[in-house]
């Protein structure tokens, strides 16, 4: 039996009828066409599906869509102010070469945002800890860590 839900994603309100077992990841990707959030494993191990719910990062593959009604959901599509003005985290990822294949990028950026909201001046160790749940096979994480450190500086200005 489908349920009527109202989801608040990136400041937009969506009313949907969905099966109660569907994950937030499925609903974002399949119903709302917000395909920027990826699915890398479905087990909550890789972090590619990370989104923010009420400002805290969650694995959208392990979160039921019905469970996040009435909460503020932010996906990678909600980061940039416009096509021209990117979020400092996105700018830093680009400048530092933190993006290769790009599949982990959205999740990395959301984990970075989660960190920087709580800790605007993280140490390198704190950055590494914050993205320990986000796997990347291309970069060895070096440039991602650098980018997040630089984004922290950019966000203070």
């Amino acid at each position, binding site marked *: 039996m489908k349920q009527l839900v109202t989801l608040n994603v990136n400041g937009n309100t969506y009313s949907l009828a969905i099966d109660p077992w569907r994950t937030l990841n499925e609903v974002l*990707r*399949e119903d709302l*066409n*917000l*395909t*920027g*959030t*990826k*699915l*890398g*494993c*479905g*087990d909550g*191990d*890789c972090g*590619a599906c990370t989104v923010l719910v009420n400002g805290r990062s969650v694995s959208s593959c392990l979160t039921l869509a019905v469970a996040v009604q009435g909460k503020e959901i932010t*996906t*990678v*599509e909600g*980061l*940039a102010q416009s*096509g021209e003005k*990117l979020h400092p985290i*996105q*700018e830093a*990822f*680009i400048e*530092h*070469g933190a*993006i*290769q*294949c*790009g*599949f*982990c*990028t*959205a999740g990395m*950026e959301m984990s970075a945002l989660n960190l920087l909201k709580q800790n605007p001046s993280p140490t390198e160790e704190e*950055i*590494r*800890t914050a*993205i*320990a*749940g*986000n*796997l*990347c*096979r*291309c*970069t*060895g*994480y*070096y*440039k*991602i*860590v650098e980018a997040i450190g630089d984004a922290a500086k950019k966000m203070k200005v």
Partner: protein
Amino acid sequence: MQEFVTIGTNVTRTHVRDKAIGAAIYTDDIRLPGMLHGRLLRSPYAHARILHIDTTKAKALPGVKGVITSEDIPRIKFGNWRLFPDTQDEYVLAVDKVRFIGDEVAAVVAIDRDTAEEALSLIKVEYEELPASFDIDTSIREGAPVIHEAFPNNISIHRKVSHGDVEKAFAESDYVREDVFHVHAISGAYLEPCASVAQCDYSGKITLWTSTQVPYIVQCLLATTLGMRENDVRVIKPHVGGGFGAKMELRKWDFCAAFMAKKLGKPVKFTLSREEEFETGRRRHPMRIYSKIGFTKDGMLTAKDLQIYLDGGAYNAMGPTATFLCGNYGLMLYRYKSYRFHGQHVYTNKPPASAIRGFGSPQSTFCTETQMNMAAEELGIDPLDLRLRNAVHEGDVIPELSKIGSCGFAECLEKVAEASQFRKKRKNPKKGRGIGIGCYSFISGGVFNWFNTQYPFSAAEVRVFADGTAHLLTMASDIGQGSDTVLPQILAEELGLKMEDIRVTSADTAMTPQADLGSWGSRVTLMAGNAVIDAAKKIKEKLFGAVTAHFNLNVIHDLECKNGKVYSKGRPDKGLTFGEAVALAQKFQRGEPLVERGSYTPRGKGLVTPAFSFGAQVAEVEVDKDTGLVEVKKMYTAHDCGTVLHPQSVEGQLEGSIQMSLGYALSEQFVLEGGKTLSTTFLDYKMPSAMDMPESESICVDTYEVEGPLGAKEAGEGLVSPTAPAIADAVYDATGYRCYDLPITPDKVLKGKTKL
């Protein structure tokens, strides 16, 4: 040395903005109207005869649109080694027999993924289980289960290379050692699971979007297996979330999506789960490596006898290439006065191994470098000196195989020693700490045409316009490594344009020039890069002609394209803007646009590769005396990749290779029991996270490769090889435990340590 404008700078990578904002489209992001979803039924047995398949109940499930088994599709064997049809050993869906747990037996297409999944459970397959083999020793034993009837001894490929009299050389050597090494399988572990979407138009022509490194190979083999003509199949590579070698074949879901799209008249998508990727995905070859090497008393190599068994799993996949290459890698890096190699590719009832970053090199090089370290100790020679004495140099001929055009190996050794203070730290050991070294040489693409392409190895088409812009079309595949950046970068350099003046269209078999063999073996920069230069040269000839005519220049004037202008080098005032020159040249052709095609095929380059890259790496580790846990503290790298086209990307490749090789050395492995994979999640598979990464310091040694585009050659893939032997050597330095079988797990360290 050439002076560059765009080359060597960190231009913003193409597509990176789309990736940053979540707008880049990967295959699973594609949604087409009316699209159906497919799932694959896989074998639960490692080796079994299929007696009967009943799909009645699955077909009757509401929402199911189609179920296929091998009864319903053309029974055509396929495989990448088209030049040798005997090696093509896979059917799309199992015929009569399954050969590993996960072997594809049937496919279901339904209105959604859940329905397709449910339908899989309604397919009844009757199996008769057969004895199975899960390792090399069992497979090659007399009376072993026969996995493919055409190969009753389970050995599908033999490869032999030799030069000089190995036996005589051993007899005359002062020091000889023999060792046996075992190396294990690892996953490419790309973040994007494989996916494909197929659409069929009303004339019956197929378009396939697929997560691949080899759109052209997929096009050809898909056409063959469907019984269609190549031009009736269009393959488009969307953004790809990494491949690392494991996405370089036609895959079964590609076929099933295309076949069902044609049959049902609706688009069809297949996306694999991570569990399927770990249970069945392509992986690096486990190998058993026997190696005997001889030296004179002053440390000069005399001979090497290398015998390798590759555990290929149930099908050949890219195993034949791995068999060839691990023998070639055994011969690179040092001057071997005599050499003998015998490689044998063995079938087992496990998921097929194929190409994973390094393609035979990480395995072979682990053996080479570990033996160099052991020999250095026993000969009483510093391991760096032993390498310097035997290192290959520019101009060396590798007997029977190739000639080395550029080589910065010796310099790499010196630089890495200096940066890491290797000699000093070796002489002054600290408790629990160790330092070790490993080196590599790698290829810049292969020259052997195993796919039997009828086209050039790489091609490029360049179109230039009167508004001062250019359009580069190439079938080369950017899978995250950055070819969509460095190829236009090369064009920008050649035509004197800026990156933003160039549009790039890549990896669409119907739109981009025939052909390109794909992204593997570090072939793209060199081969596709040379094709771009070839096309650019032809464009320039036309522009130079127009400018020469316009200014009535003497034909001996040397012209160039630079900073948006086309002009005489001797008289820079005699020149036009790039756009004006194009407009004029176009007038000379009475309006025909300026379009040129360039190509590259390695010819007369021996049997391996047109160019060799080199490097040396030093690892510093700390080992916990109670737990045996190894922590890599720092990696020092010096590498020679010719001209560095895009420094940030080269560094990114290097850093990524440290992550992958760290996993290879210490933590990543497939745990199998009776052919069943137990490590089916990232949690169990244990690839390094950001917390596990050591510090890294790197140096690029400056060389210029004449065969490469603007002096460039391979970067980043070969680097996956020296890390494990360097770490193993450092662990030995710290603990006295010498690793003969990867990975270096804490239990092995605790059992093997002699000090600490």
